[in-house]
């Protein structure tokens, strides 16, 4: 028996029985409530799900605010490390103005130098306009920023691409090292005409990185060995292999006693993009091309479709006939090639010869860049620019303000920390959680 039936669109209750004791009556009208998906199960592995949630929770606003927060805390650290400022705080109650003024001076000078070193120094611009110096001096900060950016674009892409394929590529560092090493061997071992030699060397670097990326990809595909473990270990192997390689006969520079390889042939070096001894080189343009290429690969290519499918739900990808193993391997090969190119860019753009620390930290910074860039190619480019700018500015900040360049590492770490904790940033700035992007503490639905 149907007791009551409502016409469509009516909001009143059909069943207004008198309220008796021991009953639960609920009268609710809930707007803006998200119905939990009734069959929310499966999906990507937990780690990837966390990263995906991170990206959806980090709107552009949150990212910008994270930068701001990091700068604020950085400012506090600058004050703490400056003896003049701490001295002024020693008699804070006698003359609070002194302490505040000293803090302001220290922080503003440091950040002003960061800006001048990364983007533009107004003094150099006026100097150029007045004819006191060349335009190149005015462009020097930008040149430095782009020089630091170029390799980070490649390693950032290497990590981001793997992320999208469901793999956490900690091994960009090792892949960059092997890429640089192979490129180095081709760079000083062969003597080819201009352009040809450069192309050969770049390809060699990509192949070196790709081969080194293949190893963890293949191990994962065939044996299920977790790529985080294997890539970390492979990083060490790459590092010590390079240290060994550069002191071998035929590799080590015979004119030097320290551990450095022969210099790469002039023909293999990346051409400079500007005059006046500016360091900016073709690498940055190659980086932009790589961004375009990876963008195409991810969104428009057949392989990219497989890569994303496998990254999000390997079971469904397999059921749809994709080869999960081949996709993992292919993803790591491409990621390795990109990281290898990153290492090669450093070698051919700035270093010119192999040393034990030729690639610096670009592989690990690539992880940060990929996280900040939310796994998207253009996001990676922007994040790499930011990191390049911080590096370039950090140098000037060190020499002009006496702030150790390590502060840049602290800033970087803080930015990543805030980005990893979007809820914190939201609560600091009292932002409402986004409709789609809410990183909840895994809802305590239980007891």
């Amino acid at each position, binding site marked *: 028996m149907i*007791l009551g039936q409502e016409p469509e669109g009516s909001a009143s209750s059909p069943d207004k029985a008198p*309220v008796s004791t021991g009953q639960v009556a*609920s009268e609710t009208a809930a707007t803006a409530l998200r119905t939990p998906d009734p069959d929310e199960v499966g999906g*990507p592995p937990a780690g990837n799900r966390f990263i*995906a949630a991170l990206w959806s929770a980090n709107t552009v606003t949150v990212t910008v605010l994270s930068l701001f927060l990091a700068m604020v805390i950085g400012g506090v650290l600058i004050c703490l490390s400056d003896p003049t400022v701490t001295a002024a705080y020693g008699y804070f109650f006698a003359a609070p103005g002194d302490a505040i003024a000293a803090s302001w001076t220290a922080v503003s000078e440091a950040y002003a130098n960061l800006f001048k070193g990364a983007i533009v120094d107004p003094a150099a611009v006026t100097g150029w306009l007045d004819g006191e110096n060349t335009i190149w001096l005015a462009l020097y900060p930008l040149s430095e920023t782009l020089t630091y950016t170029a390799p980070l674009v490649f390693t950032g892409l290497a990590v981001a691409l793997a992320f999208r394929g469901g793999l956490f590529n900690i091994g960009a560092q090792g892949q960059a090292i092997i890429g640089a090493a192979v490129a180095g061997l081709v760079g000083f071992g062969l003597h080819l005409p201009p352009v040809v030699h450069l192309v050969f060397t770049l390809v060699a670097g990509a192949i070196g990185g790709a081969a080194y990326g293949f190893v963890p990809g293949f191990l994962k595909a065939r044996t299920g060995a977790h790529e985080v473990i294997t890539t970390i270990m492979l990083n060490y192997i790459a590092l010590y292999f390079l240290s060994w390689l550069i002191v071998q006969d035929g590799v080590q520079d015979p004119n030097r006693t320290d551990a450095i390889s022969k210099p790469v042939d002039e023909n293999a070096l990346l051409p400079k993009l500007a005059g006046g001894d500016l360091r900016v080189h073709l690498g940055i343009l190659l980086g932009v091309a790589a961004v375009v290429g990876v963008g195409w690969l991810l969104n428009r290519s057949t392989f990219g479709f497989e890569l994303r499918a496998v990254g999000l*739900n390997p079971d469904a990808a397999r059921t749809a*006939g994709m080869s999960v193993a081949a996709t993992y391997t292919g993803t790591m090969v491409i990621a390795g090639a990109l990281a290898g190119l990153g290492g090669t860019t450093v070698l051919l753009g700035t270093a010119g010869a192999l040393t034990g620390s030729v690639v610096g930290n670009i592989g690990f910074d690539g992880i940060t860049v990929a996280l900040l860039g939310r796994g998207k190619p253009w996001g990676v480019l922007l994040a790499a620019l930011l990191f390049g700018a911080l590096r370039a500015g950090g140098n000037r900040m060190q020499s002009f303000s006496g702030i150790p360049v390590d502060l840049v590492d602290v800033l970087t770490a803080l930015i990543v920390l805030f980005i990893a904790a979007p809820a914190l940033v939201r609560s600091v700035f009292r932002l409402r959680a986004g409709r789609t992007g809410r990183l909840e503490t895994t809802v305590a639905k239980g*007891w």
Partner: protein
Amino acid sequence: MVANDHIDLTVEPGEIHALLGENGAGKSTLMNVLYGLLQPDEGEILINDEPHHIKGPRDAISAGIGMVHQHFMLVPVFTVAENVMLGAERARGGPLGMLDRARARRDVREVAERYGLQVNPAAIVEDLPVGVQQRVEIIKALTREVELLILDEPTAVLTPNETADLLEVMRSLKAAGKSIVFITHKLKEVKAIADRITVVRRGRTVGTATPDASEAELASLMVGRQVMLRVEKAPAQPGDVVLAVDGLAVADERGHRAVDGVDLEVRAGEVLGLAGVQGNGQTELIEALMGLRPALAGSATLKGEPLLGRRTKDVLGAGVGYIPEDRSVDGLIKEFTIAENLVLDTYDREPFGSKLALRLDRIEAAAKERVEEFDVRTPSHEANVGTLSGGNQQKVIVAREMSRPLNLLVAAQPTRGVDVGSIEFIHKRVIAARDAGAGVLVISSELDEVISLADRIAVMYRGRIIATVPATESRERIGLLMAGITETPTETEGSGQ
């Protein structure tokens, strides 16, 4: 979005109150409000006539409301007793003392006995079958002395036997004076157990009913229009053999022979229903056919060509459509758009793409058509599949698999967790595929579904086909066969038409 729009609900003590509605009607939202997981924008909750503000599960429990979620909130590596005491741990000798596991075990045993819930308190939860895990959830609520128990789609994950057990438990809880809110969209269960039925549709209460209302009445109230509960179909016109399986044996994850010598035949233009309680080898059988799992022995041919040992991609390419059992794990990528999911197994073939690149324009155009044709309710074909209701997600899979010429359609649990309106639609499409000349293999643990779709029914039990009977066979006989009982005094085993 307004998920609940001025809903009224009254539950009496000692009552089983069914909350009936399609997926996405707002049932779960309402219950999450009751349980304090969501806060209402308007309205109030009265318990024993007193208004309560429930800010979280802790408040709900202390107010006497317990909830068993569709997906269990248990720690798999803990024992039953440990799971039950979790969140209300008792310690011997003060707060820093030892956990009192013995007492937890005693509590579990006591509650289990009182309400007839058989479970071993020392068992590790992940070793238990789903039905027993659910019992643990119920015990967990009962040890906290709740008066109102909310069961959110409790039968969605259960086999028919486990469902029967659960209904029995619900009856004994009712006898003990507990109230139960039973959320479901299964009409049979509602009629079997509920004292009163509230039907919600699109966030509103659209009616209340007693269990003597007919299924058709309830279904149309739920969907908002007349629905066909039985599939209308012409008699099958079987053609050549499409799929022939001979002596197939397949191992499951643990290495047991889950499929142990299966022979079957599917002809073009007929539906073979594979009935059986879940876990009798059906999953392994179809996974072996689809190239997702290696076979131990036997052979299978598709139109005379060998099928086993081929890659999944090639099996699909040979004109096999596959609706996997578990859509959220195997069938769809939730973060992909509808358009992307619609080409999940054809993205590298004309017209959608080549070895190298995708043709996004064609993918999009086809998606628009499919969404229209298969009545996928969505704001846009660019929406993520995860935002759709279960029924519409399933329609996306059906649309994908039925949009190319098929020789064979393998449909596993094609309507599990799907609302009545979508079930009707999916059944129609399956019959349409049959009438277009494909052989259809339907695997379902819902006896009703098998009976209404199939032309012949093969019953699978412990890895073997123990009988093949015409679809006109009585429910009772098939039910007995599913339980492994082949001897009936009256007739011999049928074999096809």
